[in-house]
């Protein structure tokens, strides 16, 4: 690891004053909470901050459910949230997405906010043996385009970066219209999860809209009865402990045997968690017949661009939608 100063502030105000920043390669200081991603990045020299600011013990770990919906403290662990009875009962999508992520050990360590802010698994970002990575070194190029790229995104890419966003949790939360509560120098604010992550565009090193010092303090998920009928389908190279090749988060509001409203988001295919409004619109009023699902899912390919090795994802994501909707629809 590159040498760093480790700050262990006594309270959140002191932490904020140090103006660390998550998800920015040019930030001189970064936050560390559960550490499961940050320590990997440090060990691999993909991140070399001069200062780390620990958030250990400074953030809320509570999991609360009420008439407004679900509120997850930023420092609640993946394991705590996945096993919480209210989450498994009312938001099975969230529990499934978490249990299909990482390993039991990592789920005991990793936090809610840290999961949303984890960095891409793009091997060219993580291996400093590759000089070209605009996310790691702005202006250095993209080693993934034109090379081995079966792990990479087909939606939201730019000529500067095609790295896929790795979080399963974020995909489930985007489907459920979740938001994050943040605290920073400018006070508190709510950011819809759909707006938290940026598209790479010309600035792939800027991954979120968080300002210097700003921390996520909680995740809020609005009350949604339809969330009981939901499913997270994860397609991956091995049965467990692996990132998604393609994933689909689905929540269905049913009217008899027809879909009143569907919520669909995809993982593994986008440079950020990717909501599918055109597929949702096509499914409104549709039956669960395979042909109806297939024609709606075909709309997911709109705007998708393959880069060679990952072309298969454009077909696979449609099939994942069909299967996830059918599975959720079969639930009562």
């Amino acid at each position: 690891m590159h040498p760093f100063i480790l700050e262990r502030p006594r309270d959140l105000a002191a932490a904020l004053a140090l103006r660390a920043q998550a998800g920015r390669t040019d930030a001189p200081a970064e936050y560390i909470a559960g550490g499961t991603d940050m320590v990997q990045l440090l060990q691999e020299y993909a991140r070399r901050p001069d200062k780390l600011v620990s958030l250990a013990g400074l953030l809320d770990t509570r999991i609360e459910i009420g008439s407004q919906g679900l509120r997850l403290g930023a420092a609640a662990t993946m394991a705590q949230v996945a096993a919480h009875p209210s989450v498994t009962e009312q938001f099975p999508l969230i529990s499934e997405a978490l249990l299909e992520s990482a390993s039991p050990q990592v789920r005991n360590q990793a936090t809610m906010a840290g999961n949303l802010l984890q960095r891409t698994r793009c091997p060219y970002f993580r291996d400093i043996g590759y000089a070209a990575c605009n996310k790691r070194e702005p202006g250095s190029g993209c080693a993934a385009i034109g090379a081995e790229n079966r792990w990479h995104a087909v939606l939201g890419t730019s000529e500067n970066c095609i790295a896929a966003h790795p979080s399963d949790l974020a995909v489930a939360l985007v489907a459920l219209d979740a938001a994050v509560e943040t605290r920073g120098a400018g006070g508190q604010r709510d950011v819809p999860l759909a707006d938290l992550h940026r598209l790479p565009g010309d600035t792939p090193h800027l991954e979120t809209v968080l300002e210097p010092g700003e921390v996520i303090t909680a995740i809020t998920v609005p009350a949604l009865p339809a969330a009981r009928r939901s499913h997270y389908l994860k397609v991956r190279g091995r049965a467990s402990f692996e990132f998604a090749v393609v994933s689909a988060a689905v929540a269905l509001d049913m009217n008899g045997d027809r879909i009143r409203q569907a919520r669909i988001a995809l993982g593994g295919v986008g440079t950020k968690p990717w909501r599918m409004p055109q597929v949702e619109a096509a499914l409104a009023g549709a039956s669960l017949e395979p042909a109806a699902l297939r024609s709606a899912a075909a709309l997911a390919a709109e705007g998708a661009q393959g880069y060679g090795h990952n072309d298969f994802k454009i077909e696979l994501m449609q099939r994942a939608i069909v299967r996830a909707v059918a599975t959720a629809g079969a639930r009562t």
Partner: protein
Amino acid sequence: MTKDTRLTDAEMRARALSRWEGEGGALAPPGAADSIDESELRITGFTSSGRLTMTSLHVTRRELLELAAATGGALLGAQLLPGAAPPAAAQSTGASPARLDVALRVNRTAHRLTLDPRTTLLDALREHLHLTGSKKGCGLGQCGACTVLMDGKRVKSCLSLAALAEEREITTIEGLARGEELHPLQVAFIERDAFQCGYCTSGQIMAGVACINEGHAGSPEEIREWMSGNLCRCGAYDHIVAAIQDAVAASGSVRGG
């Protein structure tokens, strides 16, 4: 007939040596003068899934030359680390961050250490407290050989900074037995021959104890899913699953953590 794409031993050695790189990509640190005798060296390799991994080693130049001579360059990070310098060894940049006083509680014993902030919990256990039961396989949270219990919950000690583990109760494999009386899962691992080389075993046992205590050991399928954070390169999985099942059967309330 498909072409055999496996590398010969000689090719493997050549590749391993060619991938040795210091800070900045060269074997020698940037601007390194001959007077600098410590450098950080890295080995890069591919896992079966095609993902790139790196292992950092801290060795002196003299140690490197001796090791290279002894092994023909075919070095494996994991086996070297126990003999390597502490992780806080001087860096090629010359900068040395301020050390921190860290209070750790391990196996019901309190320790006070002064550590480089970069020290992981695993390195603190192994290199500073000399509890070498926890193993460093990948150092990146992928293999599970470093699994310990933190406040009774299993974690990967290679992904925790020691300075952030204060006020937590750490249990390592050394703290599992009661005197000469082995934990039921340790007994089951021996009876079931649930290991071959043994490198992953302490991590498997610590994860297995947690798996049982969590109530995730109800069936072979459930055990396999909930033990997926621990790899065994010898492939002793069938016996590991059987040992965990035995330990569940042996005691209604398996202790630990």
